[in-house]
């Protein structure tokens, strides 16, 4: 996939908001920039034709996480002395090292949307795409895999969310449940 103009704009927006989230001294401004970054990721998923992931990223990453961050920040003291964070030489070098290391793996990935990628040409993916509707009666293959074929994994995920919620009530509120 060649880099189209909208995708390039979204990538540029993501880069800018990521830098703003890291560099801004004001914590509230940093949180807002982080929400903008999450929204950019969601739009990028939508461009890459992964609407299920885009919806999750927009709702959880850009929406609820921002609200929870803001609520937490409202309970702490915020200093607004300077506009930008001072970046030391050491942390700058660490960031450059991480970016170079991770970026070195990018050429090893297949191009986006290539027909020969293992995830697309593999037997399992083709089996799901071919049989999902006949076996589960569901037109969205993502849902068919999540609940129909991999229902046990999803049950585990729900159990994790459930356990986290109950633990949160017990620890933070000391609920008795009598």
């Amino acid at each position, binding site marked *: 996939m060649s880099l189209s103009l909208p995708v390039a704009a979204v990538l540029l927006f993501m880069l800018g908001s990521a830098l703003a989230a890291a560099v801004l001294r004001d914590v509230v401004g940093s949180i807002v920039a982080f929400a903008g970054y999450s929204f950019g990721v969601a739009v990028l998923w939508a461009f890459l034709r992964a609407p299920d992931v885009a919806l*999750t990223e927009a*709702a959880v990453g850009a929406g*609820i996480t921002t609200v929870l961050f803001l609520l*937490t920040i409202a309970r702490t003291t915020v200093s607004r002395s300077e506009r930008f964070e001072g970046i030391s030489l050491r942390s700058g070098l660490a960031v450059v090292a991480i970016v170079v290391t991770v970026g070195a793996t990018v050429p090893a990935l297949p191009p986006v949307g290539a027909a020969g990628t293992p995830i697309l040409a593999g037997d399992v993916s083709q089996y799901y795409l071919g049989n999902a509707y006949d076996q589960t*009666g569901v037109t969205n293959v993502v849902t068919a895999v999540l609940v129909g074929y991999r229902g046990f994994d999803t049950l585990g995920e*729900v159990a994790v969310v*459930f356990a986290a919620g109950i633990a*949160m*009530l017990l620890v933070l509120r000391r609920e008795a449940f009598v």
Partner: protein
Amino acid sequence: MSERDADADASTDGAGTLTRPAAERPPYVESTIIMTTVRVIAPFVLTLGAFVMLHGASSAGGGFQGGVIAATTVVMLGFAFGIEPIAAHLRNEHLALLVLSGVGTFLLIGFGGYLVGGNFLQVSGYESLFHHGSKYSIELVEVGIGVVVSGVITGLFFLLGTGVETTRDASEPETEEEP
């Protein structure tokens, strides 16, 4: 990190307190614009959440996304009308019951697979009960997931918004031992 810490200590005059006392927190301010907007938008957001939850079988969406969108309704109401009055209506026991019912729905569908002659969570077995049985059971599972997610997120929002009660066990240490 170290220079930031030194900076914070200098600016707060060495107070060293991380959490702000309740009296100094920004109070809830009643805003007509926000209240009116939320009153108009909230039903639509809840409808969108239910749609995403129920329509996950035919389009993008599902229980996780729909549950978060449905919980956003409560978050919006909390911002418009104050978190404490909303939290007083939806008590923690209700939220725990809601979350439990979601997990129960999922497990019920799972164990029901044995009754219709299949294995655990084998939704294709429901096809023998009625037409499109596997599709409807998948959608029921999605609704269960959505109920769990929305209940947990609402509880997290209330707990962070109304504050953590830490004074009770500090003043009465004995009550913890009694069941």
